[in-house]
């Protein structure tokens, strides 16, 4: 499914002396099955922007289209039907806020994930299927599925709790998943587990993935395209590797590229002929080896 904005502008407290333009004439398009990252400093409008994707916020001006359908058609004839439309839009576009595990509330994992499907009016058999499916989608299935679904969500590790919260959204079977800082606060294992689950999810279900994050390493492994926001405007856009190699722009915005990018650019700045668009430590090591062993170098001297 696709999400498109046309000249989207959002002004908080419009018409007051405290009016604040959080999103400023943003036009973008995210296509079927794409994985797009949105980054930018605090207060750049990232969260405001993504809350328009499922109609949680209404634009001050401009348009939001989900699968070509305008969420806020102005004409009166549609006004009565609008509520129902938004409800179906919110089912199609699942929005996962920061620290979603804070919203877990049921006594068991099963009940928590079943909450959404039951609200859709699904019967118990279908609900059960959805819960099992959502758990397997986030990598919590297998032999442990019966076990984990009966446990209290609060007895799980931080990473597992977060995956349960995401499963709750997946049980609504959205076509697009929007995640705001999905790995914040997770330890490295929890983080890796979640990233792997998201990558698999996207591959197997052709989900459109939109990831808002400060974590460049997460964006590097999840997305192929990123948008950089600053003061409500899109200031950079392009393939993830390419945008991350623009260290000067990122630094000016108070963002920081992954250490691997800084390393390769640091070498290049010292005259080394190395690629500067690498994101992975293994790739970087291979490239450094190639350079160290290239003509003019003396690899034997590298040994400590």
């Amino acid at each position, binding site marked *: 499914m696709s999400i498109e904005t046309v000249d989207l502008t959002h002004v908080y407290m419009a018409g007051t002396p405290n009016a604040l333009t959080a999103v400023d004439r943003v036009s973008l398009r995210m296509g079927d099955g794409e994985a797009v990252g949105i980054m930018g400093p605090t207060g750049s409008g990232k969260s405001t922007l993504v809350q328009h994707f499922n109609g949680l916020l209404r634009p001050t001006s401009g348009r939001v289209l989900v699968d070509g359908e305008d969420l806020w058609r102005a004409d009166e004839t549609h006004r009565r039907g609008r509520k129902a439309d938004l409800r179906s839009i919110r089912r199609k576009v699942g929005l996962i806020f920061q620290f979603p595990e804070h919203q877990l509330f049921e006594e068991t994992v099963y009940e928590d994930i079943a909450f959404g499907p039951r609200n859709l009016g699904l019967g118990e058999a279908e609900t059960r299927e959805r819960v099992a499916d959502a758990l397997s989608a986030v990598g919590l299935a297998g032999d442990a599925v019966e076990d984990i679904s009966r446990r209290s969500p609060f007895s799980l590790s931080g990473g597992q709790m977060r995956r349960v919260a995401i499963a709750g959204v997946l049980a609504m079977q959205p076509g697009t998943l929007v995640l705001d800082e999905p790995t914040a*606060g997770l330890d490295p294992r929890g983080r890796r587990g979640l990233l792997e689950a998201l990558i698999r999810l996207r591959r197997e279900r052709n989900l459109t993935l939109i990831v808002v994050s400060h974590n460049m390493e997460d964006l590097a492994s999840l997305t192929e395209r990123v948008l950089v926001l600053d003061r409500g405007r899109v200031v950079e856009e392009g393939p993830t590797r390419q945008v991350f190699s623009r260290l000067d722009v990122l630094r000016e915005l108070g963002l920081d590229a992954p250490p691997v990018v800084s*390393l390769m650019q640091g070498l290049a700045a010292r005259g080394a002929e190395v690629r500067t668009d690498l994101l992975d430590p293994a790739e970087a090591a291979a490239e450094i*080896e190639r350079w160290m062993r290239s003509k003019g170098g003396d690899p034997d001297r590298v040994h400590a």
Partner: protein
Amino acid sequence: MSCAAAEKEIIEIDGLGHRYGAGTDYEVKALEDVDLRIVRGEFLVVIGPNGSGKSTLARHANGLLLPTEGRVLVDGMDTRDPNRLWDIRRTVGMVFQNPDNQIVATVVEEDIAFGPENLGVPTEEIRRRVDEAMALVDMGEFSRHAPHLLSGGQKQRVAIAGALAMRPRCLVLDEATAMLDPRGRQEVLRTVRRLNREEGLTVIHITHFMEEALEADRVVVMDRGRIVMDAPPGEVFGRAAELEDIGLAVPQVIEVRRHLSDRGLSVPSSVLTVEELVEHLCQSRR
């Protein structure tokens, strides 16, 4: 406290154990057999997977939690002694993860004054302490601002100033950088590093960001309620396989270093940062 060791050490932890819900069906052993000595002026970083006991340990440093086994001495005072609790809390300040949960006033300087006011510090002295604390975290120009309109990093610096206004000798940051953006994290880290170096403040920083451990004097690694490593960062991150076994990772530069050594290009373990690695590689190739 007359022995020399006790004067050097601000926190002494001996055989510390902590059980949540002791005696109930839900009993959880969060800490077991923890021995740790923290020297005045040290910059200590504690890392460990979720649920390893890091925060539980931190909360023992100022008597927010009391040992179920063993003991904790803060500047020679036993945290189980109720008569010393306020002295202990004045000695060790805490800053927590969520900047929004730590703000009590509607103006920055009033927020910072809250602690000393509660201690009954005289007004002129409060003024002096608040100004000093704001200057130390570089927030002087925001003294009349509303805290909720500040960025995350600025809010955490206000929280640090609030702790500093109590004139602590030791500051504990319990995942205080977890919810911040990269710039906010840098602001907070730069601030505490300066306080550590210039003011001699002892800092205990608990974090999930492995990169933040690189600048510590010493890194303590926790797993399942126990200390499993206690060494300078270079040594800790040299034990990558063990770290990965318990669900941690090594900083990217060290990962590159490992891949290089697999390729027969070994780099000394003292090389920890991007700048150091660039320098080393350029020197070696020459």
